[in-house]
């Protein structure tokens, strides 16, 4: 495997790790909340907790549901076609 191929694999791994970390950071409070509730550590959900969860979920849905920005058009070929 040449250096360029290795670099591509490493780069892809870093991108994947970044995505995982972002997903984990956003999801962590929800996981913790579910775990606490189901472990019996909390008897009743408070209004504040419910509102906080709803606020987080609404923000995430708004982010995902936003229209995707326009893609940049492909760059024009250089004069002479690069030949």
């Amino acid at each position, binding site marked *: 495997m040449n250096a360029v191929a290795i670099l591509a694999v490493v780069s*892809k791994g870093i*991108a*994947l790790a*970044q*995505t*995982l970390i*972002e*997903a*984990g950071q*956003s*999801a962590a*409070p*929800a*996981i913790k*909340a*579910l*775990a606490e*509730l*189901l472990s019996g550590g909390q008897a*009743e*959900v408070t209004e504040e*907790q*419910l509102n906080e*969860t*709803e606020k*987080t*979920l*609404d923000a*995430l*849905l*708004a*982010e*995902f*549901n936003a229209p*995707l*920005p326009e*893609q940049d058009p492909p760059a024009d070929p250089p004069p002479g076609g690069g030949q």
Partner: protein
Amino acid sequence: MRIFAKMAVVLLLGMGVLALPACSTVSEVTGAVTAALQPRPNPISRTDLYNIENSITIAVAGLAAYRRACLRGQADANCRANIEKLQVYTRKMPPALASLRKFVKENNQVSAITAYNALKDLVAQFTAQRQALGVT
């Protein structure tokens, strides 16, 4: 029985978010949301609402991360098309959630169950679409 179902959901959620690669996270977590919505609790309490909302939050957190990676050019080649197809379903979630929240908080159980079933169907459709797209 309900406790066992909840325990299974937590295990699924934990595995989906913490142990799998990013694309699989979307897959596993949305599957977990489907599991979280079955069987339907009766009556639907504030705690049930809290559980459902947290489960969907975990799934949407994975999708939001997928979208960010896509915009950075770090996701798969079909990510834009995949996101737009999934948005058909996720854009129906806010009004469905708003109805469920309203009815649960008013303790209008008949309407809450209807809203719950509508949300459950929506999540099932969303999961099927995600599988059809191969966002796994």
